[in-house]
């Protein structure tokens, strides 16, 4: 992987914001990104909030790579890259993105109870896209859940997204897979490799 190029594209390091809903595997993805940053030679901080968020609430983690990282928290306008595991949460986090930062959105909805109870409405894709365009022209969509289901491992959408992100960042896929391997039980590795490859390829097609 080319750390020089990463440094050129992101001179102050990279701030990642991961957002999703409890149970979507954001924790594994943020662990992988933290390990990867360290393997690349960066100082790293990874912050997440546990607790009430586990009960179907929103889960956010911040991963910061840099020469020296101080604050664990990313504030408004500081996220270089947002990885959104769920569409509504993509929208909820968009104010955190830096001008023209990158957002990768999983085209997948988890309907909150407030919607099924009739208290509010879930925005449609056009609405989401429109709102996001106000902040950045750098938005990518991936059908992470569909892809994961196609390969027969619906739980691996998080790894599909990591594959897609790897393609967008132009990092070597082997290096990321090596880190993933250290974070999951060996018996699930081949599934995850498949999921990763599928996500990676889906993004290569788009960015051509």
């Amino acid at each position: 992987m080319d750390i020089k190029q990463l440094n050129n594209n992101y001179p102050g390091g990279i701030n990642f914001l991961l957002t999703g809903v409890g149970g979507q595997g954001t924790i594994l993805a943020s662990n992988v990104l933290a390990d990867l940053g360290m393997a690349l030679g960066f100082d790293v901080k990874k912050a997440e909030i546990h607790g009430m968020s586990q009960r179907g609430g929103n889960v956010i983690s911040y991963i910061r790579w840099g020469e020296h990282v101080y604050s664990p928290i990313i504030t408004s306008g500081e996220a270089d890259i947002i990885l959104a595991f769920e569409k509504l949460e993509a929208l909820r986090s968009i104010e955190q993105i830096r001008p023209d930062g990158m957002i990768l959105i999983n085209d997948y909805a988890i309907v909150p109870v407030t919607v099924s109870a009739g208290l509010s409405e879930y925005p449609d894709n056009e609405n989401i896209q429109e709102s996001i365009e106000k902040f950045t022209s750098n938005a990518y969509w991936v059908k992470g859940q569909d892809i994961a289901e196609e390969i027969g491992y619906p739980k691996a959408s998080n790894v599909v997204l990591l594959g897609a992100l790897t393609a967008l960042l132009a990092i070597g896929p082997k290096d990321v897979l090596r880190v993933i391997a250290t974070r999951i039980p060996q018996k699930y590795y081949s599934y995850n490799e498949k999921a990763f490859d599928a996500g990676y390829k889906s993004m290569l097609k788009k960015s051509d």
Partner: protein
Amino acid sequence: MKRILSGNEAVARGAWEAGCSVASGYPGTPSTEIMETFARYPNAYAEWATNEKVGLDVAIGAAYAGKRAISTMKHVGLNVAADALFYVAMTGVEAGLVIVSADDPSMHSSQNEQDNRQFAKFSRIPCLDPADSQEARDFTIAAFDLSEQFDTPVMLRMTTRICHTSSPVEVTEQQQQIPEKRKYPRNPAKYVMIPANARRRHPVIEERVSELSRFAENFPYNRIEYRSKSLGIITGGVAYQYAREVFPDASILKLGMVYPLPVEMIGTFSGSVDKVIVLEELDPFIEDQVRLIGIELYKPAKPINSDFAHTKSIFPITGELNSAIVRHAAHRAGLINVDIKQEPINLNVSLPARPPTLCPGCPHRSSFYVLSKLKVPVNGDIGCYTLGVAPPLSTIDTCGCMGASIGVAHGAAVAGDQERHVAVIGDSTFFHTGIPALINVAYNRSNVITIIMDNRVTGMTGHQQNPGTGFTLQNQATVELDIEKLVLACGIEKVLTVEAFQVDIIEKTLKQWMKEDGPAVLITREECALLPSARKRYLPLQVTDQCNGCTVCFRIGCPAILKSKELDPKYQRPLAVIDQELCTGCEICAQVCPRDAILFRNQVIALRKSEVG
């Protein structure tokens, strides 16, 4: 070797490296993973205590017996353990004792905000406040040494951001060897706190504070970083990170020990910079002490327009800090100039909220559904079941701290409140502080109805073992406490245990008890739906074409029940549909559906068989 550890993992690591061999605590976000990590180390004893006070007493006993010991808790846990804290501050210890208080600025998962550095000062024990995982590990080791050197318990004060942020930590593979076989102290003058002895101990601990303050002058984790002399910042804990980020050129006095303070060091630092400020999260803890020393802190030219400026000079007194908040406050105080290049863009759409909810298949749901129909006042407690407050169940009327439900309900009852009062409490919370309150109900004969929601685990904090589960923190099989027998022994005569998913029995029982006088306890028993053994029984249910969109099943607030796009032809209401990924098959919805439009588990199985056959 460097590895990425969370602050909590780093504390556990530090404790292990320091030769700590006994840990006792009670779960509580953000502290829980310290115990869970420590429990996996070799040569370490770790236990979940029934509450924080018991946990601290246990650690104290171990430290009296000559073993290095640690007790962990969230900030409010120290309120429960305060009695123990104050006596052990008086007695001191034989081997190192570290008390970890994990504070939760911004209350990510807590009922109140409090700054437990105050407890250190209140009880006269030193307080270390790490700023990242490396310091969490280093300070833990230092805390054990300090504890023995000064014959005092030491507080390691963590905050959510330190506990749950991971960063690289240098560790060693060596464990310090603590001398074996010390005799349990026979030293009543020091360890028996009758008034005569306690009176002699108080001056001793006041003198200890003075000694510690002198020691703090050369404590390696108090350090001065000189950069530009135009601004000097005194800071500690996570606030140091924001200081570095927002004021990269400022000189910094970084306090690793925030109580007691190094008076001379602060004087020297303040004298060598043009202006001094204190940057800290929550209370003006360092700030007040620095002012008392007689240091003049920087005053903004024009008074700051802040609601709480009378208590803390520049930075907010409420909530967690971050670099944006610090930058903004510094700008307002005239310390820096932030050029606001462009107005921040606003999203300008209101998004559906995603509040935490009871999981699909949660055994607490049925009781709340029944209580919402009965419309009685419900005094709640702390746990997953606090989520019974959320719409559409909207059933909890009060909730303060762990164990409060039963006492508060009793108070309303003896005050002669017209309505019949109900208390709801989880199994772990019942063991924690519910039992004395229930005995009080029985003893003083109020007619409170208590529902003990026994989901066979300590759920909210991430599924810990407790005295009802039959296993310990280190996975040893143990006795399984019989709640019903315990309730009987408390003096409650009317007790019934039911399966939590039996909506009709819960409803019938409560309605019957409402008509009768006297205290009663209903135990609703069923495993938390997230436990591995419960997951094995998942079987998603189905809605049939009998559904007419009557909305009754929507009112139980199960995330697995969705409104479909299809409308009922007669009433034009959306029909119900069940998410096959989320539904566990708990059958609560099937029981409440007035049209039998939701198939029960055996019906689903029969249907599947017929489809295959």
